[in-house]
């Protein structure tokens, strides 16, 4: 039997160019979310950077049912790597393919 990970994908746009390729910056973003959500809800949501689609757009995977918490947490994250920036949640979907399709349509 194949167990599928029950995750949702959230397309996020940053107000400034951001490169989340290295794990240090990913951890910075996650700690910003954790500071707002608290440890337990953060670990339940388990947000992970799944893909970077452009200089400003990336995809966060999150456990199903917690995508709204992530949208809320990202509203309060205003700094990354010492730079002021905001994060906007553009689209939420169940597959990364549909997120990529939406990215193609929107940008």
């Amino acid at each position, binding site marked *: 039997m194949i167990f599928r990970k029950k995750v949702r994908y959230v397309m996020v*746009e940053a*107000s*400034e160019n951001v490169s989340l390729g290295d794990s240090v910056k990913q951890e910075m973003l996650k700690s910003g979310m954790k500071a707002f959500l608290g440890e337990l809800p953060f670990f339940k949501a388990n947000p992970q950077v799944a893909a970077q689609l452009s200089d400003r757009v990336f995809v966060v995977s999150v456990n199903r049912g917690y995508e*709204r918490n992530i*949208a*809320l947490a*990202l*509203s*309060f994250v*205003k700094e990354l790597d010492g730079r*002021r*920036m*905001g994060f*906007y*949640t*553009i689209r*939420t979907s169940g597959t990364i393919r549909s997120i990529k399709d939406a990215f193609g349509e*929107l940008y």
Partner: protein
Amino acid sequence: MQFFDLVNFHEVPESLAARLGYKKIFQTGKDAEVFEKTVVSGGKGVVRSDSQEAITKGLRQSNVIGVIPKGISAGREVLDEVKENEKMLIIPLSEVTCSDGTSRVQSMAKMRRLVKSVLMAKVPFALVSFASSSECLMAGLQMIEVAGFLGIEPPRAKEALGRLGELL
């Protein structure tokens, strides 16, 4: 349902508004005026003051659509004036999301108190970001979540996000 936002800075690209889920993002100085002390007749606008007198005077003008409470608080008199003059209270959510540290906790508490009194007094209200820079902007979805966090149920939040379009 169509959403609208009001921001306090210029140069918001139209494509960004669509991506964030808004039909239009109104800009102060361009689409709406912000009257701090005296209301000037002409274009439509909002009153933003902590002086009761300025708010009362402003709300009686026909080109004023509502009031943005300065310092995230509005007394009973202000709420009554808004209701009486059939205007609306405009709640700026970026004052909560864009503040830091201790001031964020304080502004959250103040905003929850304001929301509670607005809902109890049944005053018509609109939700806007009133962002002063691009990092303080939020998507429509985020606005609904922040509103929910402050005690506004999603159906009411959605209604409040669309209200600005009817008046501006």
